């Protein structure tokens, strides 16, 4: 999403890319949905030798990707995932894009139709700074990783950590792995998705599979 505009926020995003890469088996087939200007894909190709493909909404991001030799098509996560065949990827990655989709639940289901596993990262709206921003300033939260004013944010479907795990339950998705990051970028050790994680976790990364699959 908005790769170019977001470029300044890279420092903290890098951490979640590193963690996503750690979850990916070398040599696997990967689809990065909302791949921005392709930095994660390029990293996965380099570090994990993946056969990587990307889908990106912004034409500018796509053009940068293709000029850099990545296989990326311009398209929309909400409408274009239907074209991908079942089980055609080992991993379908959605990195900080879920909150910008129109139908996050449908997108999640699509990811797990296309990929054997889905890796999803998103900012936790239950993070205490978001809560206090709203509670004490009475304004829609703007933090480092959520740095758009309400009227022009592409992020239209925020969720908390607990919202997300509840949706996974509802959709019958199995959480295979998860990493909750504190605002410092450090991995939180008490990541049981409980009240503590939901309050102090600023970013979440989940690896999902279909339950029973």
């Amino acid at each position: 999403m908005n790769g170019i505009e977001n470029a300044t926020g890279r420092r903290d995003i890098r951490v979640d890319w590193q963690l996503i890469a750690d979850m990916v088996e070398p040599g696997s087939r990967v689809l990065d949905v909302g791949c921005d200007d392709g930095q994660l894909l390029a990293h996965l190709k380099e570090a994990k030798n993946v056969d990587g493909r990307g889908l990106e909404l912004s034409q500018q991001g796509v053009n940068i990707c293709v000029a850099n030799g990545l296989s990326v098509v311009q398209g929309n996560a909400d409408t274009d995932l239907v074209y991908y065949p079942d089980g055609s990827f080992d991993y379908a990655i959605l990195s900080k894009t879920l909150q910008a989709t129109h139908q996050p639940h449908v997108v999640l289901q699509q990811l797990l139709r296309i990929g054997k596993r889905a890796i999803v990262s998103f900012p936790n709206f239950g993070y205490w700074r978001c809560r206090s921003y709203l509670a004490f300033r009475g304004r829609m939260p703007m933090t480092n990783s959520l740095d758009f004013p309400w009227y022009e944010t592409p992020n239209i479907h925020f969720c908390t950590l607990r919202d997300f795990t509840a949706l996974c339950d509802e959709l019958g998705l199995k959480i295979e792995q998860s990493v909750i990051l504190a605002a410092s970028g450090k991995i939180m050790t008490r990541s049981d998705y409980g009240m503590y994680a939901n309050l102090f976790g600023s970013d979440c990364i989940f690896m999902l599979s279909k339950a029973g699959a």
Partner: protein
Amino acid sequence: MSISPPHNDTHNVILAKETPMPLDCGTTIGAFNMAYCTYGELNAEKSNAILVCHALTGDQYAASRQPVTGKDGWWNMMIGPGKVLDTDKYFVVCSNVLGGCMGTTGPRDIDPATGKPYGLNFPIITIGDMVRAQALLQDYLEIESWFCVIGGSMGGMQTLQWASAYPERVFSAIPIACAARHSAQNIAFHEVGRQAVMADPSWQGGDYYASDAKPRAGLAVARMAAHVTYLSEAALHRKFGRNLQDRENLTYGFDADFQVESYLRYQGINFVDRFDANSYLYITRAMDYFDLVEDHGGTLAKAFEGSNTRFCSVSFSSDWLFPTSENRKIVHALIAAAANVSFVEVETDKGHDAFLLETPEMFKTIQGFLQSSAKSRGLGE
């Protein structure tokens, strides 16, 4: 960009000498001539060959001086040392299509059965036939697989046909500003052009070669109508607006008062010097008949099933002849076929013609795609 044409060789070869080549219309064509140009050197492994497919009114002189017009090749800015199709690295081949009029056998050539020009006795050819003929050229050049097949417009159709009919002979494919099937609107425009040619009394049922009168007026009108479809409203406005041509006031007559009229007349008149009217009929027909969807039982993805070819599709935002939506259908089919595909829509107001013009974003896209393809093909720097 430099205007000096790079080193080139023009060649002619007779193909289908022993075995006639089957045509989609049900007949065959015996020994036929294929005219082509090459640029750069074929490497020892024969793994660096790029086939450039030309558009409706293009020819094999992609990066050489066109002998009739004396102008630079139509893709001079793309092909040459250090350019996107880098002739220091790649061996670039461009052949005149079957049915054409620049050396490859077409309706203006002598029918061995009668000793006279074919005219309308030339068999109806298709995009599939053009590609089949190019495959014979590939055999002749002993190139097992093209490193890349690339082309815009009808050249893009040939590129898709190549990837679909001969996937193992195409390592990568770059279809630009094209469609998997010709739309009703495009067929309609072609029909206007053909009717203009056939309404010209000098056309004489296609049998005009021995006569002094050639269907110049008809072909010029066909070209003028078609040329409008290659541009965009914005580009026409930017270039000409309502500016008058060499005059201060309207003449209250039917002279070319407006610059845009003068420009179109110039396009029309110039075209007839270098193009054969019957070839125009045959080649527009070939485009009309192109339908990869129908050829694959209504599912375009089947055209690319199991393909290992790497694809890069490019469209232009202001192209209304082969709009982005048509190119996107190809991309969706490639995705459905689990093919390796990239797709870029280039933002430009230049219309369909953008692929023939200085379009930096297209250059960057193709260059990046070719470099990564070269890497996976093991083509050294």
